[in-house]
């Protein structure tokens, strides 16, 4: 399922490393850029590239937060639920996204655009509540701001500039 182009690119990346396993996370993050999540087939092909068994790669994939072993939407929204964000209303953010954009918590919106997941502290405690969308961070969330950011993504497929 991985394109030959992508495989070539990954092979090059692996060749540069001290040991091929070192690049396991990078390979998976890269594959996710193209295929959004790590399906079983993707895992098998990635494992082959890395010289690991699919299980060995899965040991890592299921360990990490930002590797998705289940299907996700085009934009994965991680809302921080650790101390500061929780104090500043992470639940309101979750609820707002969930109701306004029809995304079940922990699931994906029917249009396949958004996936909503909680995440532990993302280091934006000074701008709580915060969220990460495809590894871009947004802080000091308000319902209006969320609407702007997600609206823009849904409408124009463009990331809102950080404020």
């Amino acid at each position, binding site marked *: 399922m991985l394109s030959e182009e992508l495989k070539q690119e990954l092979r090059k990346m692996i060749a540069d490393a001290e040991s091929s396993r070192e690049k396991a996370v990078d390979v998976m993050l890269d594959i996710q850029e193209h295929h959004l999540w790590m399906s*079983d087939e993707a*895992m098998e092909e990635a494992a082959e590239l890395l010289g*690991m*068994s*699919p*299980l*060995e790669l*899965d*040991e890592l994939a*299921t*360990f990490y937060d930002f590797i998705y072993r289940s299907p996700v939407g085009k934009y994965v929204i991680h809302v921080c639920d650790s101390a500061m964000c929780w104090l500043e209303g992470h639940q309101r953010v979750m609820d707002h996204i969930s109701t306004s954009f029809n995304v079940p918590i922990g699931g994906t919106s029917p249009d396949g655009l958004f996936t909503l997941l909680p995440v532990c502290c993302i280091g934006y405690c000074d701008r709580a509540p915060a969220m990460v969308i495809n590894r871009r961070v947004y802080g000091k969330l308000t319902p209006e701001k969320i609407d702007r950011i997600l609206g823009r993504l849904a409408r124009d497929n463009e990331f809102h500039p950080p404020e």
Partner: protein
Amino acid sequence: MPRLVIDDLEIEVPKGTKVIDAAERLGIMIPRFCYHEALGAVGACRMCAVKFIEGPLKGVQMSCMIDAQDGMVVSTTDQEAVDFRKRVIEWLMINHPHDCPVCDEGGQCLLQDETVSSGHGRRRYPGRKRTYRNQYLGPFIAHEMNRCIHCYRCSRYYQEFSGYRDLGPLQIGNRVYFGRFKEGRLESPFSGNLVDICPTGVYTDIPARFKVRRWDLQRAPSVCINCPLGCNTIGNSHYRAVMRVEARMNPYVNGYFLCDEGRFGFSYTNGGADHAQRPWNSRISGADVTVEAALAESASKIAEISAIYGPGAVVALGSTRNSLETQSMLSRLCRRKGWQGPVWFNDPAIYRKVRSGVERLDSGIAVSMREIEFADFVIVAGADLLNEAPMAAMAIRQASRKNATIIVVDPRPISLPFEFRHIPAAPAQIERCLGSLVKGSISKDELKGFDSSAKGFCKALPAKFEEKESGISISELSGQLMSAKRPVIVCGTGIVCESTPAFAADCAQLLRESGKKAGLFYILPGASSFSSALLSGPETKTFSEILPQIEEGLIKALIATESDPFWDFPDRERLDRALSMLDLLVVIDYLPTETVKRATVFHPSSTVFEMNSTFVNQEGRVQHAERVHVGGVPIWGAHPPRIIRNFVPGGDHQPAWELLWKISAETSMLESVLTLGELIAAEIPVFEAVGHSKYPITEGRIIPENSEGSFVKPKASPAKGQTAKGFNLLLTDTIFASREPSAYADTLASVFPEATLFMHSGDANGAGLSEGDMVSVELELGAIQLKLSVSQRMARGFLFLPRQRGIHWQKMKEFSAWIAPERIRKI
């Protein structure tokens, strides 16, 4: 040597001993889950907490993580430590299901024991229990993840110890899941050890599933007789059936573990699931008779034939699955009665290889599997370990984990669960390769110190061996061998040339002369090849050499004792014709073999689980298997009948040696020989020499101190390159399916490897064949169809055919065949 005090008892232990082990030496069993002697300490379960009162450390610490040091005062009963251990049990139990009654581990569960002993009886945790879905892991191992206590023993055993990569921990936190990437059979042929190693019931033994509890089992120490290694087992029986086999710890042989063939290949003794596959009753011409009638018939017929045609018209066949008692009895009877034999082997070449190997072993050079684990350089010559002697592969893996260099010189596409350098040399080239490797490791100074015979041998060794295809530099490896201190040569006796076993011994000898602690380890065919070699002499014949006499009518009676020529004699039609010419075919066996079907008189013999017996493994270690149960038709599987009987159905079997003695009518024998021990010692003088005339012999090796190892001048190996176009077809063993008696175990039938013919990919390309093709191979007596597997990592010009039950390879005329290219076709 640190001295420490544990629970007011003082002990001195070697440096590096963990406190948990030091306590064990004092008889104090500190609770543990993750710690296992074979796997080492990782400190995951935190169960082995003890309090350090004095010394370099203070407070509650994990006894598995701490080396014993001078001045330590340790208390295992300190309240703080006891409370902590109790808490650990509480933590482990918050998610453990309430399923002991339906769990097969119940009654032999470490978690159960520790929970009871810690006093934890009531669940206080107010939350709900975590659950997991299970995976299908194949026909041997059942998976129940809800019971997991996350000690990581399974993944550590499976990945680190045994070297397979398809079972491990997934997820994080309290959701960690031990399983496979996808459901399916575990790849490891050592998967059964998960059952033993798991401290609770996550992995349970499927063949024994729901059949019996540990407390109802009759247990006895036994020995595995499937391959020559003689791994130690525990036989477990109930209701007249062997229910399961477990590994028995023997530090010199198998350690804590066992391969799946040895563990699950026992059901032949029960006659399979329906109990009908084993011949339970004595028979004359196919009809069931009493034991006495059959014995009388055999005795009178043998006497009659001896009287008419002379005793030389009677031949006794033995085999390499006979016990030492049976072999000694056979040997004695043949001599006293004047019968021909005993015959141990079918293939004369194999016989000579086994004999030359056994002759060359001496106690200085023979190594046990344990010693292989500490080798720093291992050369495997002409042996496919995973298929021929699986646990030896596990021993080499341990050496590999300690950074030993492993070289395999074998023409087959070998796969092993560790990194190794494979030189796919043709059988005729193995000596050349081995010789040049050894020669390169001998420095000039060392050469000077050698005596003349060693010097002569060394000089005659080939200097160069080119191995283009594998791209391996022999000289580089020689350099590594030069710096090795404990090299071991593992030599097979299957596909190698006849001179190779002795040559390997010479090489090991030479390495020893050069100051290394070199070892030699043979892989022999069958459980008791070693003793059969000891019992034979230069004039001992093989079955192939006896067969013409049968065909000529010189031999009228054959006594086959646990011996089935149909198992490994190639030309089945010829064999069938020859056996039909006999006046008498007496068969003593416990397996439903082809020979049993043709028997004139059949006597059921006891399996290893049903008698006390002795076996000598390939390094000369004498091991005793105790009787596990009396045997008979098992009761399980169907409702037991509502009748009262005074006999055991299927209980007619007797040890083969006893049957032999009875049919020989040799009543006077017990006058000269009083006990079995004396019988054995009388037949095999080395027993007398090492003081093994007492019976039973439970431990010890019977190889002489130092046999005169004389170097044989290596013969010039044939020039490389094929003359005629075609392939050399060789028979090879495969795990589960190639060995009596395990191949008769229906528990293994579902895992028999697919019948596959191996061919070099270059050869296959030339013949227009590719991986996975179904091919027809025309042998001399007919064609066989099977799947083709191609590999680059094997010798060119060879075909390897598994000698596996279910493949009708006995269409060959000889033990190997020459196949012209046109005789192998894709279908």
